[in-house]
């Protein structure tokens, strides 16, 4: 498993396959030279043109005081295929942020203990941060 490494302005990004995400994450956390024990920021980006949703984890190391590195993983945009393994078992701090990514982007995190909507209300059906999201009022205008 050789992830795509990309260096943009002093931030290292690792683009990994979905199947390998969990293993990579565990390695990053436990390797004594890396020790990325602090998962600072979790979010998703909707790349409409590339037809994928990218989930980005920003990792820091509290023990060694280095970072960040961005761990990226991509999933297809289609709602039923948009699944990514959850990293909540590795870093507890992902819990709410993954829920947020699920809520706003529709990314399903397999293995997340409590994957519910967090910011939108439970009855809401769409995922409002997707680039092709049409707000209800605009829908009305289209008619």
């Amino acid at each position, binding site marked *: 498993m050789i992830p795509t490494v990309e260096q*943009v*302005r002093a*931030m290292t*990004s690792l683009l990994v396959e979905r199947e390998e995400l969990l293993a990579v994450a565990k390695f990053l956390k436990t390797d004594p030279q890396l020790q990325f*024990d*602090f*998962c*600072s*920021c979790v*979010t998703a*980006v*909707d790349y409409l043109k590339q037809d994928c949703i990218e989930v*980005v984890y*920003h990792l820091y190391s*509290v023990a060694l*005081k280095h970072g*960040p590195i*961005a761990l990226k993983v991509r999933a297809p945009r289609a709602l039923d295929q948009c699944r990514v393994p959850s990293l909540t078992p590795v*870093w*507890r*701090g*992902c*819990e*709410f*942020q993954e829920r*947020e990514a699920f809520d*706003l982007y529709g990314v399903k995190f397999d293995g997340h203990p409590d994957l519910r*909507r*967090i*910011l*939108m*209300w439970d009855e809401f059906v769409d995922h*409002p*941060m997707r680039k092709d999201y049409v707000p209800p009022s605009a829908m009305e205008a289209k008619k």
Partner: protein
Amino acid sequence: MSTIETQMLEVSLGPQHPSTHGVFRMDVVLDGEYVVKLKPVMGYLHRNHEQIGEKMTWLGSMPYTDRLDYFCSMTNNWAYALSVEKMAGIKVPERAEYIRVIMAELTRLLNHACAVGFLLSDCGAWFTPVLYALRERERILDFFETVSGARMMCNYMRFGGVRVDLDEQSLAMARAIVARWPAFLDEFEKLMTENEVLLARTQRVGILPRELAINASVSGPVARASGVAYDIRKVDKYGVYDRFDFRVPVGETGDTFDRFMIRILEMRESVKILHQALRDIPSGPCIAPESKLRGFKVPAGDGYGRIESPKGELGFYLVSEGGAKPYRYHVRPPSFVNLTILEDMCLGHKVADAIIILGSIDIVLGEVDR
């Protein structure tokens, strides 16, 4: 012996509740007075801030960041400006960096003063500490208004510097505020920190172990109270923080009392930084010459910038396509992430404790819900 049949009581504390610090809800299951389950429910103030940010120009998001954590608009501005500057490669003039430090530390003072004030008010101290804190905060807000034109929604920083320069008069004003602050802290500490009722209420309540704090991405004073010696001002050395001599207080137990004390100690350190910054502030321009207001563009790519906001790590993850608008604009709000461990801290304690534990995390709903 017969047993009495008892029922769990499900109470939803909030969204309209005096001490949830906004429209926040805790779905609590109580066994008598004991909390056996607690689920935080948020989103009542959700306005899709990130999508608004994606529809705005780079500059247009700046006033919106004021509204994230409406107590600390200055640090929000800074975090956003810092992230954009990182991506656009703008160098900030020295004077502007000093001004930013002054503003951020004053923000820290007012935020911590109010946070401990509200925490004590949650303990039932009838608003006296809050009003003392507000009394001092008022002076800082006056200063902010003199400089930026608004008391809370400052909209002060720009990419590459700050909007308005500090003149001698406002610097004197800031010095007066800083000179007063230790006296206020002394008074405040005398009022509360040795109060037996407070000690009984807060010590050994809501303990957050160090490992959990790190694993749950808890940041800011909450993490430091648990013994995580991690301050972004020290680690990233953003701005000109490496030039100041200050210390970062770190607690041991990680209970509510530690979180309370860490904030007070941090205020004392902030006063130190402010003294140095106000003494050493160099002359020069307050905004980078290459910075421009209209037609500002950021090279394509993504970037993550973070600062130590009073509540913790405030980060902005931005993706640019090279255009006038961000492609993705994500806020990593400290109080939202810090809420992750609310349930862990509250279980087994009483409702009254759950309230003060929430108060000790110090959340602002504008930031949690975005």
